């Protein structure tokens, strides 16, 4: 059996994890981020508000489902004109299902150039553990850690990411996304930590296009469920509209 001192330490670790346990490693924090923001499978309801250059806004309400192999299916419920529309993303292919045509049409991802409302949300697709190596850098702020992430391969959408995680709850608070040239392309702010069926995570994300700062989007997570059943047949074109 354990020696008494270890027993005490173990109990203390359980009850006061922040004080007693050692600081997490960068890899551990990355894994925590992925677990919170990009769990294997999850289902949720989210409202996205897109702010345009001319200061007008558009908002969409949708239900989304993510599979373990990174496929995403989105069903729109608001605005009313979008009800019944679905999006399916498999790797870099994107299809839109239109209920009036009862067909799915593929959309080239280059459309994002036309200032599409959804391209700011690219930042949420990043898989940190898989694509990045991490190390700590001074954050200048006692309440959070600052992580420098460097892309492992050329296939990562961003060459470098800076991620701030709060020490209190190990929640992401801010992130900056850089291009190969070193230019800051996007930034994200994570706030409003809430409990979703027992699991706490940020419920409000503000994503900004740092090259054209008047253009930014917000995501409000209304409901989230983790580790749901996301069978592959739900991510097939023929299933859209059902």
């Amino acid at each position: 059996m354990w020696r008494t001192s270890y027993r005490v330490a173990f109990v203390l670790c359980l009850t006061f994890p922040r004080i007693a346990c050692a600081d997490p490693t960068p890899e551990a924090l990355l894994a925590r981020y992925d677990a919170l923001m990009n769990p294997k499978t999850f289902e949720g309801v989210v409202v996205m508000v897109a702010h345009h250059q001319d200061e007008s806004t558009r908002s969409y309400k949708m239900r989304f489902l993510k599979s373990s192999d990174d496929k995403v299916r989105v069903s729109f419920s608001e605005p009313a004109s979008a009800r019944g529309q679905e999006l399916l993303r498999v790797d870099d292919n994107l299809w839109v299902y239109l209920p009036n045509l009862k067909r799915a049409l593929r959309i080239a991802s280059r459309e994002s150039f036309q200032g599409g409302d959804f391209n700011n949300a690219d930042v949420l697709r990043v898989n940190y553990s898989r694509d990045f190596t991490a190390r700590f850098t001074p954050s200048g702020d006692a309440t959070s850690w600052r992580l420098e992430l460097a892309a492992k391969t050329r296939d990562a959408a961003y060459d470098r990411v800076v991620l701030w995680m709060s020490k209190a709850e190990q929640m992401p608070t801010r992130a900056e996304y850089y291009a190969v040239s070193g230019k800051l392309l996007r930034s994200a702010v994570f706030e409003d930590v809430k409990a979703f069926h027992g699991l706490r995570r940020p419920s409000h994300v503000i994503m900004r296009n740092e090259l054209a700062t008047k253009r930014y989007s917000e995501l409000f997570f209304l409901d989230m469920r983790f580790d749901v059943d996301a069978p592959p047949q739900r991510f097939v074109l023929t299933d859209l509209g059902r």
Partner: protein
Amino acid sequence: MRLLLRLAARNAVRQRRRSLVTFSAVFLSLAVLVTLRGFLNGLHAAIWQSVVFGQAGALEIHRKGYLSSGDASLELDVPTDEAFLAKIAAVPGVTAVAPRLSFGGMVTDGDETTFAFFDALDPARELRVCPRRGEMVATGKTLGESGPAAAVLTPELAQASHAHLGDRRTLLTSDRDGVLNGLDVELVGTYGQPGLPLPEKKVGFVELALAQELLRMPGRATELAVAVEHPERPEPMKPLLEAAVGGQYEVSTWHDVASFVDDVISNQNFILGIVEGLFLLVAMLGVGNTMLLSVYERTREIGTMMAIGVRRRDVLSLFLLEAALIALVAGIVGAALAWAAVAYFGARGVVLHFPSVPRPVHIYPSLGLGYVFQMLSLCTGGAVLAALVPTLRGVRLRPVDALASV
């Protein structure tokens, strides 16, 4: 004066061969110039008419700010309800109104997409405003001859979407709220020839109703085209239309919208001006040439006249009048001939083929009396000027010397 005039006329007739030289030079110049002007007028009319009746319409109504905004926004739209259109049609001078919707979107076959600009038209109303819309359709049918889900595309767009006549494609675009929508269309015709100098090569035309459904803009459009009784002078209609539609909208004439037409026309007029100058100059020199010879030959005659007391001034006037008379008569005959030619071709029409336009272009030469008068006075005045110098020299001689010469 009348005596001098009669004398001048008789002298001119007497010296048939010499007068003929002057006559033919002026006649030819004027005939050619007037004919050219008539044909150029016809060409210019054909140009602005093809733009006004084939694309733009005499006047266009937009929401204020639409034309100057960079990416033509669907937010700045205009109503197309019957009451509003009737209000515009009621303005005196207006003959027809047609709504149009311009938007950008993707043409997709379900797998590959290509971006293009679209103009949505109401075929029945459009033909009343732009009766020559159908002319640019090179192959297949026009919108009016087809069903509601028809599309007419430029050859570049058809090629980019790998579509042939009869193929179905889907138009995909976002509406004003950013929500996607798609509708199927069938390619029924192609517009223009490849290589048209349009700013955008990939353009498509669909029915207005289809576009309104696609963009979820029922009863709205982005512009209203207006046809008027006198499209060649649309300016007076502008304030009338502005009063009818109100301050939210702005009215533009085809001069504003298709300003390149004015540029092309003024360039061509500029060139014609140069040609006119050259012709007149050469003709006047011919006149001067003959007058010099004439004065030289008739030195004894001049001497005789001065010896019997005719004043130098009157001798001068006599010669100048001769030149003026010949030039005037030659000019009138030349102009009349040209006028007849222009009238003949103006009635029949001249058919020209331009490689960039699928159908032959009909030109109807026409002339304004103002131009003819202008040319006549120019050449008469020019003849007088051309005759002045040699004549002056001739009358400076002393009668004695004049009589003694050959």
